[in-house]
């Protein structure tokens, strides 16, 4: 870059020899805020010769040095008409001096003055994220408060969701028909929180089937959920006071392969003709195939998943569908576990805050007051 500047200076006299441009003035620096001291902003006032069409200025070179007297190195450049650059090659807490050189066909003119010492420093808080911090902290406080109070035995109120009644009704109908119940806990591994929710629901389903003396069949796709599903079903039979009826073969390991799993479950549906199909967990493209095959057998179907893309297929083919969060709510309600109930209540409270924010914010915006919107802006 320096060589380029020098070359331009050398070439200039040979051509029509316009005068060297007047220098840029009032170079100023500012530490870039909200970073780890990795950059400095530099601004200047354009050379009086830098006007469109005049062609006297081609670019500005920004030079840096660690001492007032140089040596100077070019660190950045800007084309004519631009009055700022950001130097991202600085080391933090190091003083630098800057000057700006105006380059044109007539030569290169260094600015009369330089600026410095300029130092880039680190900040401890990114102020543009204050709203995210505030709202996140508020939400976490709600969740932790409710988890704590649930642990201390003060069980917060959670309404019974209709999906749970639908599950019980389906099991009842299967019992009347003298047919088994099929439970599918999704096709994901245990690291998907939906699988956990599905397995929690399985325990109370098993409790009901034990009470009604209806066989249950649980095909599982991964080893760890398989082991947990066995525990859950056994626990359900134990809670119902019928541990002797628990059949270890009711939970079977199938395959993590999506289509192989579907084929196996469809086989169970067509062979054993369960009276009720309960799908609770994380589902992907196979939701469609399961719901369709299940629908064609005439069984009562209840589904629940938080995978939004798959919900439409369950909604149209099932008698009842737990939508999104309802899956978690059902598992919290059924298990009564403090961590689940607490999270649910915390989310409920922050939802009221959101509703309030939206109502107030829309009113303010309608009257042309933008303060709240600007405070929440993060982009």
């Amino acid at each position, binding site marked *: 870059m320096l060589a380029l500047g020098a070359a331009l200076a050398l070439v200039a006299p040979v051509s029509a020899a316009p005068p060297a441009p007047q220098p840029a003035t009032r170079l100023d620096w500012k530490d870039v805020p909200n970073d780890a001291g990795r950059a400095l902003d530099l601004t200047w006032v354009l050379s009086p010769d830098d006007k469109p069409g005049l062609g006297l200025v081609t670019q500005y070179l920004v030079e840096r040095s660690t001492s007032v007297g140089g040596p100077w190195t070019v660190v950045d450049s800007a084309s004519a008409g631009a009055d700022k650059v950001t130097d991202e090659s600085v080391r933090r807490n190091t003083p630098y001096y800057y000057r700006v050189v105006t380059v044109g066909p007539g030569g290169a003119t260094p600015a009369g003055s330089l600026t410095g010492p300029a130092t880039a420093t680190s900040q401890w808080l990114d102020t543009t994220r204050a709203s995210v911090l505030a709202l996140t902290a508020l939400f976490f406080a709600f969740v932790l408060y409710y988890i704590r109070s649930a642990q201390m035995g003060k069980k917060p109120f959670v309404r019974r969701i209709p999906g749970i009644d639908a599950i019980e009704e389906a099991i009842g109908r299967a019992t009347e028909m003298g047919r088994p119940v099929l439970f599918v806990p999704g096709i994901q591994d245990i690291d998907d929180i939906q699988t956990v929710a599905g397995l929690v629901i399985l325990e109370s389903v098993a409790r009901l089937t034990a009470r009604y003396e209806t066989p249950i069949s649980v095909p599982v796709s991964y080893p760890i959920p398989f082991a947990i599903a066995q525990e859950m079903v056994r626990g359900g039979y134990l809670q119902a006071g019928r541990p002797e009826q628990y059949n270890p073969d009711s939970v079977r390991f199938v395959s993590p392969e999506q289509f192989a799993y579907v084929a196996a479950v469809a086989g169970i549906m067509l062979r054993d003709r369960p009276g009720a199909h309960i799908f609770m967990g994380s589902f992907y493209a196979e939701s469609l195939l399961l719901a369709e095959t299940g629908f064609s057998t005439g069984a009562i179907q209840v589904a629940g998943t938080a995978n939004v893309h798959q919900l439409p297929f369950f909604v149209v083919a099932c008698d009842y569908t737990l939508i999104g969060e309802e899956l978690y709510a059902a598992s919290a309600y059924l298990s009564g576990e403090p961590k689940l109930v607490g999270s649910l209540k915390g*989310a409920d409270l922050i939802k009221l805050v959101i509703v309030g924010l939206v109502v107030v914010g829309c009113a303010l915006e309608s009257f042309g007051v933008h303060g709240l919107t600007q405070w929440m802006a993060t982009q």
Partner: protein
Amino acid sequence: MKRELPLTITAGIGLLMILSFFVPHQVIAVPADFIQASAIIVLAFSYFLGGANLLRVNIDGIYKREPGWIYKLVLVVSLVATVAIGFVEGKGFLDQGRISKWIYDNLYSPMQATMFALLAFFIASAAFRAFRIRTLEAGLLAAAALIVMMGRVPLGNVLTDWLFGLRWLPFPGVPHDLHLSTIQEWIMDVPQNAAKRAILIGAALGVMATGLRVILGIERSYLSGED
């Protein structure tokens, strides 16, 4: 060591990640960056584990002559061959003209694409056999689905071109060229968008609460399994 140390590691690292979002200072930023660089490496190793597991299960099945063992043999041979060729071919193993690239272009790529294309057939048959409109809710779902499906493709607009001539709803600002596609775009922009945002926010709260529980060691389901 068996439970406490992993819980402490998760808590420490999780908090560091959250802090690094709010605190730009190098005291937080540099360790966070190192941990993020480390996670990539550990995650890559986990695939070797997955491959080894797949081999173990299938070789076991071949050895015991389980039903379909011959297919398991296909799986094992193709896995081993693909890895071996890839390792031998070196850094640019996916460059034009390499055997690994041929395998990618002519085995992996067409089979993967076709697997997912099967779904088009299943969706058509499910539309016929398992789409029940018996309630107002299901009716709304069906109406929205039909409008969106037809409004998003050229044929829908050709079929509704006659609407173009009509001056609909003398409401100022309402677009006059009322094609099916304009209605489709309105559904996407207004009612579906509002509901999607509600779902999005609800899901975000769920993920954040889970994240908090995992970091604080309240949620341990990921540690389940053998102790």
